């Protein structure tokens, strides 16, 4: 039995009468990159938001780091929240703060670090996500979309989490930027021992960096497995998704990336 970091059981989410997930089960293992795919409206982002507590599930149990979040006291919840980081689609940086100050927010709020140490660690994170030093003093509105995502990633890494949630990390990036971002995620995951929960539509990302892929359909996780499993599966939607015209262009490239990341 592998070590599960996230364990979702019998999850049901609904908005009014509209049921998004029904009896959904999912396990995310320690140290893996899990990609969540599914058609539009299958509730990929809703699942992410439900796990991190922004939506209330109608039924079911969500365990993160072995802590049942439905039963957790506010203190227990906070302890769990400090061990994960979240990257929203467009970075969700606080617009009144500079990039460096954004990264320092969690350090200041939760750990009460002195300013000098915060500045040092913020500089380190800025370098780790591949931003130039002068980006630290820029405001989010002065950055390009790709830089905002990197800055958002740096903020989600501020407390050195064990687990990060990424909501469509490569959406809106050009192919080169997207490939670089994939590589960055892989490198950080390898070097920092992160577990990554990633909602994505990007077939290149799925090929390049995901260890396992979970497919959301029919209000639950229909299939979960490696890319090879996906390619073999016979469900028509999967066939179309992974064998369609766009899928063929996305060649398996994971090994190359792994090599690069480890050098």
């Amino acid at each position, binding site marked *: 039995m592998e070590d599960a970091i996230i364990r979702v059981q019998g999850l049901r989410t609904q908005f009014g009468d509209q049921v998004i997930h029904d009896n959904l089960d999912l396990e995310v293992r320690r140290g893996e990159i899990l990609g969540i795919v599914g058609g539009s409206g299958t509730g990929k982002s809703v699942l992410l938001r439900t796990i991190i507590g922004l939506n209330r599930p109608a039924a079911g149990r969500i365990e993160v780091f072995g802590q049942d979040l439905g039963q957790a006291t506010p203190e227990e919840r906070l302890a769990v929240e*400090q061990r994960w980081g979240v990257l929203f689609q467009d970075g969700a940086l606080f*617009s009144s703060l*500079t990039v*460096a*100050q954004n990264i*320092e927010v969690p*350090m200041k709020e939760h*750990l*009460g*670090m*002195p300013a000098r*140490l915060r*500045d*040092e*660690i*913020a*500089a*380190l*994170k*800025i*370098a*780790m996500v591949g*931003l130039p*030093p*002068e*980006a*630290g*003093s*820029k405001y989010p*509105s002065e950055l390009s979309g790709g830089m905002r995502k990197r800055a958002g990633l740096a903020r989600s*890494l*501020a*407390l*050195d989490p064990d687990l990060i949630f990424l909501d469509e990390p490569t959406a809106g990036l050009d192919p080169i930027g997207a490939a670089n971002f994939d590589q960055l995620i892989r490198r950080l995951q390898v*070097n*920092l*021992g992160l577990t990554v929960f990633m909602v994505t539509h990007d077939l290149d990302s799925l090929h390049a960096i995901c260890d396992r892929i979970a497919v959301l359909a029919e209000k639950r996780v229909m299939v979960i497995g490696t890319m090879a499993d996906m390619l073999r599966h016979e469900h028509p939607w999967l066939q179309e998704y992974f064998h369609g015209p766009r899928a063929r262009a996305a060649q398996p490239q994971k090994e190359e990336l792994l090599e690069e990341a480890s050098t």
Partner: protein
Amino acid sequence: MAEGWLKSAAGEGGTMLLQAGGHWDARNVTRLDLQLRDLTPTDDMPVVLDLGAVERLDTAGAWLLYRTLKTCRAGGGRADFAGLTPAYQTMLEQVAANDQPAEIEPPHPAALLAVLERLGRGAVDVGEEAKQQVAFLGLLLVCLAGSLRHPSRLRLVPLVYHMEKVGFNALPIVGLISFLIGVVLAYQGATQLQRFGAEIFVVNLIAVSVLREIAILLTAIVVAGRSGSAFTAEIGSMVVNEEVDAMRTLGLDPMEVLVLPRVLALVITLPLLAFFADMLGLFGGMLMCWLALDISPGLYLERLQDAVSLWSFWVGIIKAPFFAFLIAMVGCLEGLRVTRSAESVGQQTTRSVVTGIFLVIVVDAMFSIFFAAVGV
């Protein structure tokens, strides 16, 4: 929660041995940082950082260790790690590779300079905005003239829709405020005038102030807050959404589609709102006179006829279309000046209300001088 710790001891052969252990992670670095900064290795004494007892190391902890090593080496002494596992080694290398100071905040200019800079920028902004307002006014008038020549181009449905929104829907709030102001004026005026035994003149006070100034000014201010801001926010969010750009590429003139119906709607409805406010203000005054001063409604209306000429009424109403035009123009202009960020919608909305009210009061003052000069 597991703690991280640091012990310093004298090692073999005159070295300084620093033993690190426990959890060297983000939760513990604040304390460890203080401890490490206090530490001053004696010159020339080689330092050994032993990580043998470390159970957990993350980038924050690794940064502290790396930084200590770096400072020791920078001082000219020798410093080395000991007891490294491959994982810690990777983490330390990772940190070393990313050791690059970053800018945290944009540089602050000196205080006096900053004040001067803001003053200068503010002045230039005001000038720039005035220029844009004049340019926009010109565009708007051209567009209006075009519509008057070809009335079929006037968009009737949006016009009626906006009239309902800015006019009809504003009736309750405008009415309530005017009514209350009438009541307050009657009460305050009466207590002052009673001292001279001239309570009856409270009717003159109410009639002149409500009809000439208060009703229209309050209505304009409420409408600027209610509809001027709505215009900016509506048009602004369309700009953010690129809807306005889409409109231009489809050959639609935003001036004609968005601005003109709003301006006309307000120009038509504000005089009506002002009339409504006049009536409710007078009614509030009448009610208060009756209840508090025993001036019967009949007497009140009789005094009213004596106190004011028809011109007092027209002085208020004439101003309404001008105020309406200013409020709507500023509201639409600020909406179109929104840049493509959600933040600027808020900024421009605030600006639209402030500028709208400011212009209304300036023009009201100008009207006062004008009416005094022509003697009404």
